């Protein structure tokens, strides 16, 4: 069930790891960026999107405590309506906790909406050159 439903904000690849992309140059060769997770100062931060506007902080924290202890949590509210904007940042001490959470919760439904769970910060590195057809054809 983890990444089976990829509807929202997920058109760029898998659940946050090793995403690849190409530049928009008009040449035939394109360098590939590979995004790996980037550690933050105090831990590993994941980015949740697609949260229902009536989501409650406690419910989100409860849910995201299943695969690790939530060290830090940020939820933003729409200044006009006072409702949840739709994204949250959740920090774990260990990379494995964050990765397990991404694997298990990405594409899951919460309050009737499909949520996306990705890394918040990434470490891009150019891993080589490829033709556009290689990228599109994978």
């Amino acid at each position, binding site marked *: 069930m983890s990444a089976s439903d990829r509807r929202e904000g997920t*058109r760029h*690849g898998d659940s946050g790891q090793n995403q690849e992309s190409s*530049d928009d140059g008009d040449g035939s060769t394109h360098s590939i960026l590979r995004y790996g997770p980037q550690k*933050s100062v105090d831990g590993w931060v994941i980015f949740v999107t697609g949260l229902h506007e009536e989501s409650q902080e406690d419910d989100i924290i409860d849910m995201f405590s299943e695969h690790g202890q939530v060290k830090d949590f940020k939820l933003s509210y729409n200044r006009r309506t006072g409702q949840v904007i739709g994204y949250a940042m959740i920090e774990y001490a260990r990379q494995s906790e964050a990765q397990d959470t991404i694997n298990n919760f990405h594409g899951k439904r919460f309050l009737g909406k499909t949520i*996306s769970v990705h890394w918040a910060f990434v470490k891009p590195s150019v891993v080589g050159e490829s033709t556009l057809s290689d990228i599109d054809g994978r």
Partner: protein
Amino acid sequence: MTDPSPNDDFYLRYYVGHEGKFGREFLEFELYPSGKLRYANNSNYKDDDLIRKEVYVSPAVVEEFRRLVEVSEITKVDDSKWKEPDERSTGHQELECKIGSHHIAFTACEIRSLGDIQKWNDPEGLQTFYYLTLDLKALVMALISSHFKARPIPD
């Protein structure tokens, strides 16, 4: 070479600043298609230094920025009637965004509250602009403080 990315039609830059009693104070951020997020905040209050941070955010985060811009419908706003900022008294803000085929670049006075803009031309457009900039700033602040554990000075 430009930053390669799947979000290659999305770019965002925001600046707000003024000359105040502590000198020139500003906040600026810029999001590149690659996900590179640059943030700068200069507050001279209590001799705070210029803070500059840079981090790559994931495509999912870039997508959320894009979504905020889209739902705001800022691309339908026309700033031609907005009053020109007076740097000496009010400070100013700039919002530049490339999204799909749209490329907007707005300049407005610094808006301290919604009450300010009711007296100005095009309060509706300015309100759209105001709320979008609040939402964008909130996202940037949350990202910067999450990653660096710095406490950015809220505007």
